[in-house]
């Protein structure tokens, strides 16, 4: 039911701020002639208590059902007058303001022109308010739990913080163990603590925390819903090992027919493992996993007489029948902490990575220097592709210890030719760290570092860099152009740009300080969460300065290197930030959702999805409906996600999606009255 619109227009003098250059009386007179205006009044200060009381009184006495306040900017007092309407029992969205101060009296001295403009603005507000509709401010409950995707240091830290605050956390990790890249590192700059020493306790905490449900070897399959109410579907991939039974004794791995034949990812392929394996000794959970592709039984259906591992396992944990499991749960908020990939040095063929065994990337080098790595911490030239058939082979060949090691920085960073314009922020420092570690292990080694600039901006970094340089490491400013082999030496061709002399530098081993890149599988998460990417393809934050851990979608946050290259302190710092942002939501238990959302006319929508494409918040989806017996696709707005920008309304050709309070039927009349002189 609707009665006739009864509009009250209230024109504020704002002391003399408005009245000085706008003839308020004339505006009042004019307003009272407008269609459906029941009353038009002026007052010295509309926003004052008596001013507001005036409006409330009129609403009550004259049955007003719409209100126009002509005063200052709505950015200032719209909330005030909305409350006034609520006080009077009217829907707060039956208010429209005409800004006759900031955008009229204060900027136009000429009283005639100012008055004329004020009249137009009031008229525009009147025609709009007449067509406004009541809106509801909704709140939704927040499920008191969080999902964290990725269990690198960032994910682990965020999980621990949120869990410590008493909320349930689901921590989903793709690989068999938590830890991420940090677990692969040996020592960490600038303090040189051993990575495992500081990380492992946290990994264990994660596994034991009563509030954390750890889902390793798992992948998020689908997420629907909106802030406070996300529905999550996770696939727990089958390990073919019953984790409840597995004691982590490793008897199975010893006997695996594939033992030592498969490059271990954790060791960047420098070490070998079997088909049943644990990625590294400190892995959490300490449970074995069968790699389906390489297991003879699973890939060929036959493993000797019978699978040896199964025989060896006393706990009876191995079960080839185990299937992937889908777990579903609800969370209120999500933190994405999926980390990074390293740059694939093959994309710079001049460095001959993948061609010569003695050209390695920095992560491989981390494994080489790591005491728990494949060489037990001995820096040797790796021999790739030569499968160690027997233990003795290794001795036969003997490790080759490099005496001259060369590092090249900025491989894949700050390099337009490979599409990465950004600085990876860790390479300068980890190169210095690695150089130092070499010095530790092979004190007589000659070490050269090719660099473009050294960036040591963090706390204690410049000091660390200084210290390393003083250890006798040679820094040459220049970008090598080629690496080739001469005899059993590698030759690095470069130009020392400080002295402008071309040089050829002979060395035993080259370490490429590769940059950090967005994960190659990042689209999985983009598709599921509809995240945006910045031009560098890392996930995009809502605001680079003020909302650095938020995403465009309410309730979804970013932590760690998935948002951009970071070192560990920054990753942890951001993780804590994301955790606290998530906890604000979880702690308040409720979120308000925008009222001026968009809404679809399903009768006319043609299901083209233009609106779906433009919506920055993924608030619109196409759904199938039944139109007089026919299945048709139409757009539907999730009001909890919609932020009310209205971009969809302008994208829709058929005018089927309209933003409440900014509908075509509300704006066109404004244009009409403002267009007329």
């Amino acid at each position, binding site marked *: *039911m*609707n*009665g*006739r*619109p009864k509009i009250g227009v209230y024109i504020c003098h704002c002391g003399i701020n408005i009245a000085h250059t706008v003839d308020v009386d004339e505006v009042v007179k004019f307003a009272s002639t407008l269609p459906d205006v029941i009353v038009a009044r002026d007052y010295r200060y509309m926003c004052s208590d008596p001013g507001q009381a005036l409006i409330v009184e009129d609403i009550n006495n004259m049955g007003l059902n719409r209100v126009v306040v002509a005063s200052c900017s709505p950015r200032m007092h719209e909330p005030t007058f909305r409350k006034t309407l609520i006080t009077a029992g009217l829907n707060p969205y039956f208010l429209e303001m005409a800004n006759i101060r900031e955008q009229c009296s204060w900027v136009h001295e000429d009283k005639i022109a100012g008055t004329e403009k004020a009249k137009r603005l009031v008229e525009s507000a009147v025609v709009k308010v007449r067509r406004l509709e009541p809106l509801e401010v909704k709140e939704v409950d927040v499920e008191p739990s969080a999902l964290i995707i990725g269990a690198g240091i960032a994910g682990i830290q965020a999980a621990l913080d949120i869990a410590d605050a008493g909320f349930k956390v689901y921590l989903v990790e793709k690989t068999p163990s938590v830890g991420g890249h940090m677990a692969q590192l040996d020592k960490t700059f600038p303090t040189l603590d051993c990575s495992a020493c500081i990380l492992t306790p946290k990994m264990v905490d994660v596994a034991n925390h009563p509030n954390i449900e750890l889902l390793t070897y798992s992948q998020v399959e689908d997420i629907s819903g909106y802030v406070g109410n996300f529905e999550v579907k996770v696939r727990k991939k089958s390990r073919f090992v019953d984790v409840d039974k597995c004691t982590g004794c490793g008897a199975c791995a010893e006997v695996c027919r594939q033992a030592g034949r498969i490059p271990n990812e954790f060791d960047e392929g420098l070490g070998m493992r079997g088909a049943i394996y644990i990625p590294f000794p400190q892995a959490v959970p300490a449970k074995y996993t069968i790699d389906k592709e390489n297991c003879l039984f699973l890939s060929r259906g036959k493993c000797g007489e019978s699978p040896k591992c199964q025989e060896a396992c006393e706990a009876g944990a191995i079960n080839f029948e185990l299937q992937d499991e889908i777990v579903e749960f609800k969370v209120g908020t999500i933190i994405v902490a999926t980390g990074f990939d390293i740059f694939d040095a093959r994309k710079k063929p001049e460095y001959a990575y993948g061609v010569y065994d003695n050209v390695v990337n920095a992560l491989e080098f981390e494994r080489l220097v790591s005491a728990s790595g494949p060489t037990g911490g001995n820096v040797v030239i790796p021999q790739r592709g030569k499968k160690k058939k027997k233990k003795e082979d290794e001795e036969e060949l003997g490790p080759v210890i490099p005496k001259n090691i060369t590092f090249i920085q900025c491989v894949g960073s700050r390099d337009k030719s490979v599409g990465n314009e950004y600085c990876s922020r860790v390479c300068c420092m980890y190169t210095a760290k690695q150089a130092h570690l070499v010095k530790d292990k092979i004190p007589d080694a000659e070490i050269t570092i090719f660099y473009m600039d050294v960036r040591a901006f963090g706390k204690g970094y410049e000091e660390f860099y200084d210290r390393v340089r003083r250890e006798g490491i040679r820094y040459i400013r220049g970008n090598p152009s080629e690496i080739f082999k001469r005899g059993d030496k590698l030759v690095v061709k470069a130009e020392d740009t400080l002295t402008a002399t071309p040089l050829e530098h002979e060395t035993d081993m080259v370490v490429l300080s590769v940059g950090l890149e967005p994960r190659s599988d990042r689209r999985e998460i983009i598709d599921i969460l509809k995240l945006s990417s910045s031009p560098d393809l890392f996930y995009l934050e809502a605001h680079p300065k003020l909302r650095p851990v938020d995403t465009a979608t309410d309730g979804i946050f970013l932590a760690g290197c998935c948002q951009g290259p970071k070192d560990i302190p920054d990753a942890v710092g951001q993780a804590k930030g994301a955790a606290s942002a998530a906890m604000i939501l979880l702690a308040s238990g409720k979120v308000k959702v925008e009222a001026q959302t968009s809404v679809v006319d399903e009768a006319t929508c043609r299901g083209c999805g233009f609106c779906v494409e433009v919506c920055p918040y993924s608030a619109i989806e196409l759904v199938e409906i039944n139109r007089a017996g026919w299945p048709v696709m139409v757009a539907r707005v999730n009001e909890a996600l919609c932020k009310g920008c209205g971009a969809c309304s302008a994208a829709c050709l058929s005018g089927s999606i309209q933003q409440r309070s900014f509908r075509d039927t509300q704006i066109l009349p404004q244009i009409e009255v403002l267009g007329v002189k």
Partner: protein
Amino acid sequence: MKNPYIPYEVKIVDAWYETPGDRCIKTFKVTFSDEKIWDTWSHQPGQCAMVGIPGVGESMFCISSSPTEKGYLRFSIMKVGKNTSALHELEAGDTFFIRGPYGNTFPLEEWKGKDIVTIGGGIGQAPLRPVIQYIRDNRDDFGELTVIYGARTSADHCFKAEFEELNACGDACCHLSIDVQEENWPHFVGFVPALLMEVEPSPENAIAVTCGPPVMIKFVLENLEKLGFTPDQVYTTLENRMKCGIGKCGRCNAGNLYVCKDGPVFSYAQLKEVPEAFA
């Protein structure tokens, strides 16, 4: 000669909502602003008028008061679109414009002495109301009056008070229905055609008049036939879209009949020949 496109101003004497909701129905009681027009105005049950507001538009509505109700006209209008929304904003004291009366009328003269059954659904009761009222005001000229009426819910029933009064004063026997059961609903539950079978009026010396949504009419007609009503005992009114109301603008035709001029009242016998009538 008066220009048939120029409407007269009428003033709302009273206005009230019959039903709530998005598609609410509001009844307006109006009189001509210029009293003199009453002298030239005469309408009969079944006739319509173009109702509009200059600047908004016009649409056709049946006059839901009987000529026996002197001094005012009634319109019951359901809010469905542009004009009707604008009309719904009006209140007592406001004005709008009408032109008419248009169309033919129920042949009440011919029906004298007969039993009358009206079968209405939803807003379709609007054209039946003047028939009922006319009979009440000429009660002795007609036989028994049976009123069958249904709407989706009890809230959607138009003219509630009048039905009660009708029953109370014994002028007619009213049978009401709603589509699904509600608390405290003492009457029939189901669709109007079913209620019709329940009431089972006799075709003997009777006339049946029906109006409502197209599907309802279709089944009511079938059921009336089952009850033994012959096509010439059954009347209905059609509501095709129309713009001029005076047989020029073209669109209201059902076959070769101009609904605005040849109708809106038709006997079923007539419509049986017109394949488009119930499209």
